[in-house]
């Protein structure tokens, strides 16, 4: 508990100084958040811009047209579709692999455990450009795999697995193993125990891992750019468009992704806050 200390009386100047000193951190933090959210605001605002010519840099006037004709630019719709397909499959596979690896790492003491830990950490600590480059050389030598959906998928699974492992592992470390032992004592076999006890307990972490993988996969540019061949995902579309001046539709999609993701996360946080309030 903080000890209350009586403060001697001071003049107006001194008390103003105390006020400034006490609130400078808060004021600074508010400025920080403005800085952090400013580019997002720019993205949202410029999705309603009515640009003259090719460049969407200067505010010209308000319009709904970019939203109404969100797929009015050639190539943007197919790029989004490819991104979503890759993300869905990649995060499903990566979450399944990641969950199993996490279980193995936490449960079993096998010989290459430390090596596996490092191996999982390696993609997280390697610059994306090196990952992309090494995958490209790998695929260049596997000439029977055509560049496109399959190569993008393999690459995405590879770096998503690490994130899935870390997420599920965090949950498993705080897991009470007595629950499983109790189930086994009651006559459940290993598979039933896994299905009825282990899985329901780690489902939140598995779901979180899936969402994380999905988000990372949709957003990934660098690795995808290296292994995509002539296929175009949404970030690659943006990259190509940026060279000649990105159309306002790019901002529309960016805003839409942001709104969907942030409302999910916000709902989660608000539910947590309400729970804490009641507890």
């Amino acid at each position, binding site marked *: 508990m903080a000890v209350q200390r009586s403060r001697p009386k001071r003049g107006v100047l001194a008390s103003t100084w105390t006020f400034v000193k006490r609130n400078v951190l808060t004021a600074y933090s508010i400025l920080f958040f403005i800085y952090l959210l*400013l580019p997002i605001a720019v993205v949202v605002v410029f999705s309603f811009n009515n640009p003259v010519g090719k460049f969407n840099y200067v505010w010209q006037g308000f319009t709904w047209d970019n939203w109404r004709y969100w797929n009015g630019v050639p190539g943007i719709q197919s790029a989004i579709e490819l991104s979503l397909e890759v993300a869905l499959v990649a995060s499903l596979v990566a979450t399944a692999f990641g969950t199993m690896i996490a279980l193995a790492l936490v449960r079993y003491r096998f010989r290459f455990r430390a090596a596996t830990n490092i191996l999982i950490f390696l993609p997280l600590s390697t610059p994306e450009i090196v990952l992309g480059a090494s995958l490209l050389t790998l695929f260049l030598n596997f000439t029977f795999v055509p560049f496109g959906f399959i190569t993008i998928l393999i690459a995405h699974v590879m770096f998503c697995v690490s994130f899935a492992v870390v997420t599920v592992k965090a949950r498993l470390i705080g897991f009470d193993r007595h629950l499983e032992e109790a189930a086994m004592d009651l006559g459940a076999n290993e598979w039933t125990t896994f299905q009825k006890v282990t899985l329901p307990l780690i489902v939140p972490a598995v779901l979180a891992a899936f969402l994380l993988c999905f988000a990372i996969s949709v957003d990934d540019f660098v690795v995808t750019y290296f292994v995509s061949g002539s296929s175009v995902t949404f970030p690659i579309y943006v990259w190509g468009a940026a060279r000649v001046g990105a159309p306002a539709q790019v901002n529309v999609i960016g805003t839409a992704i942001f709104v969907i993701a942030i409302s999910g996360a916000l709902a989660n946080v608000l539910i947590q806050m309400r729970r804490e309030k009641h507890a």
Partner: protein
Amino acid sequence: MLWLAIFFVVPLGYLAYQSLESGNVDFGYAFTWAWGNYWTAIRDYRTQFIRSIEFAGIATVIAFVVSYPVAYWIAFRGGRWKNLLLLCIIAPFFVTYLIRTLAWETILSDHGFVVRTLGNLHLLGVLGQNGHILSTGTAVVAGITYNFLPFMALPLYVSLEQIDPRLIEAAEDLYANKIRAFLRVTFPLSLPGVVAGTLLTFIPAAGDFINAQLLGGTQNHMIGNVIQSKFLELSDYPSAAAMSFILMGAILAFVAIYALIVGTEQLTGTAV
């Protein structure tokens, strides 16, 4: 459960195969143990290597200085709003990386208010070049700092949040000086977060080429731009691979030193 264990080994082996085999393929591409590639790479692209380290280093330091007070504020004064504030910190991640960077292109463009304000303050000569911010190193560093800021802020918050406030109070009772209490107690206890944040910011920043490409123009290319163009535009695989390995080697050495200090488990634990 043995069959499960075997099932784990398959994706692991696959992963091992991916991360190890691809490396060997890079070397084998020329089939001549051409170590000369490395020397040529270092000789010809020394400026880009140094620039990458320099930009990433400056961005990491700025990100640290900027986000430490905020992490501190959320950890100790956030109260009920902590989770909401954390959400604000990761909010930029919900906008596609490239679109975020393009937004900075808009903000820093010659018609934007940043250029005008700096012009009015006569600071443009210091930070910009010929009245521009775009296409200068400043823009690249600004973009990198912004894009990797959450990677710095989150680990800092996690380590600060774990500190028992009573320790700081005890220190204040003993030293009776806020600055010394901070330097002797709070800051040392937050060091794991500082280490993790530094790594998570510096590593991707050193290999980044998006900011340099979109915000920097041709004068400010980083090593990532060189690797990217060698691979995808010039198809000069051996020297591009050599450069990738130099970059990765430098970064792995950096990580290894930290791993020795902190331990791998803690490193991976603080990573997310």
